[in-house]
């Protein structure tokens, strides 16, 4: 029962388990779960996951595949992902275009890759290996970054476009991350959006960030800023409608507040002419 996803979603967080299991249908079309939160033997996490999955379509979003690491891929981890996917039948499985550690130490952060030909050559067979194990296309998300390497040979958007062309992966376009990185590295975020291979984008993330003037930090602890809403509208006009969700990871408000913010996302999408809402990915 591989499902399709459409409409507007939220990241499932433990704070809202009670809301999603009280029998009342919430104004959210689908939920994204952090895969690692459910790679546990049993108990409450899996109990609530199964209950909520019965009522809402889901996608899986991981934070530790470390697809760009110089370390070998962790096959045990991929196997666990596969077991979880068999359990909840997500519409797709995503992680980040980044590395999280090296020499088997995990920094539990989404660290940027150098945008080089060597990195592309490193990633291509690894993505193929993941797609082989999971039996489906891998969806990768662009990350926010606070440093840029002197070794970079191309822009982030050219790197992403070339990776999609070579590896056949799909994209989770995080519009907030595009905005944050654009401000931090001094490029026009619309250049990124214009260059993104639209056909590969299956999902959009929106989130809040902290603006320190010369440095923006992707904190996921604030509502979405107006500048990011504007870039989101621009994105939909450029690439068309895509299932969109809000990520909130800290200072998590009551569900009602997030649903109100999601209603604003719906309005922005409608105003951007995203009336046709065919699933981009089957």
């Amino acid at each position, binding site marked *: 029962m591989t499902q399709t996803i459409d409409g507007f979603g939220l990241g499932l967080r433990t704070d809202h388990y009670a809301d999603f299991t009280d029998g009342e249908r919430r104004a959210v079309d689908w939920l994204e779960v952090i895969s*690692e*939160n459910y*790679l*546990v*033997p*049993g*108990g*409450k*996490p*899996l*109990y609530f996951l199964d209950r909520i999955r019965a009522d809402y379509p889901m996608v899986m979003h991981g934070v*530790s595949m470390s697809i*760009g*690491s*110089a370390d070998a891929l*962790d096959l045990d*981890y991929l196997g*666990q992902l596969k077991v979880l996917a068999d359990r909840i039948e997500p519409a797709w499985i995503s992680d980040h275009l980044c*590395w999280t*550690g*090296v*020499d*088997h*130490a*995990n*920094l*539990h*952060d989404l*660290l940027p*890759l*150098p945008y080089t030909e*060597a*990195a592309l050559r*490193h990633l291509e067979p690894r993505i193929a290996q993941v797609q082989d194990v999971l039996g489906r296309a891998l969806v990768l998300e662009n990350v926010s*970054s*606070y*440093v*840029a*390497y*002197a*070794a*970079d040979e191309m822009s982030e958007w050219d790197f992403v476009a070339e990776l999609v062309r070579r590896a056949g992966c799909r994209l989770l376009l995080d519009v907030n991350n595009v905005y944050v990185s654009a401000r*931090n*590295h001094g490029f026009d975020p619309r250049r990124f959006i214009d260059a993104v291979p639209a056909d590969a984008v299956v999902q959009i993330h929106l989130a809040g960030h902290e603006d320190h003037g*010369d*440095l923006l*930090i992707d904190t996921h602890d604030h509502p979405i800023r107006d500048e990011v809403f504007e870039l989101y509208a621009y994105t939909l006009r450029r690439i068309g409608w895509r299932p969109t969700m809000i990520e909130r990871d800290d200072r998590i408000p009551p569900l009602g507040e997030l649903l109100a913010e999601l209603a604003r996302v719906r309005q922005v999408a409608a105003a951007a002419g995203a009336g046709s809402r065919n699933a981009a990915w089957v």
Partner: protein
Amino acid sequence: MGLIELQRQMRQAITHGASPPALARCDGLAVYRHAWRSRMVEALRNNYPVIHRVLGDDAFSQLADAYLDEHPSHFRSIRWFGDRLAEFVLAQPEFVPHPAVADMARFEWALSLAFDGADGRPLGVRALAGLAPEQWAALRFALQPTCRVLALEWSVAPVWRELATAEDPDHQAPMPEPLDHSVLVWRQGLQPRWRSLDALEAGLLEAIRNGLNFAGLCALAGEVVGEDDAAAAVVQYVRQWLVDEVLADKAGEFIRSA
């Protein structure tokens, strides 16, 4: 520079303040450094909320920093970070105010393992009801997968409960007393539970884990309560284990061995 050298340099730059690889923008490095440390300290605090209460913010941060240097995370999921904290504070007692912290850490970690440990089907009270008297001797029980018996040297559990349930974030609790005893930690339904055990009950649970049958359990109990009262004593414990859902129904295995 190859990818692996670049990543090793970045890792050292983030975790130990070493020089990063050549960067076009480098002031953002501080963001990664700060985020890494605070994320790891927070993860340790989430796994050890009462240890954090016992030590307070400053001492807990120092403990977390020292632990992080000794045991950087090798886990895919940050949920498992801190698995060796008890061992660490035994070896490095200067980071904690009281030797009982090691037992408290073992206890708190055991509770967290019970929280999301493997699900098991509890053995129902009825499973025993239909047994003929001659079937009992060969009976072999099994423990629920989350069951753990901890041998502790300090009376940490009551202090843990007091601090875990106190509404006042600055609530003061007494220091634990020296006390050699055993505590059972397990999960009933979705709820992690614990209780103190007398020496016989701890021995019986250990014996069950080692595969002793009911006759073997009775022989063990006989050494404590005398041969005549042994079976009754074991049955008494078994009743409590059934109520507490400590025993597992392993897919009919129980019935077959009976």
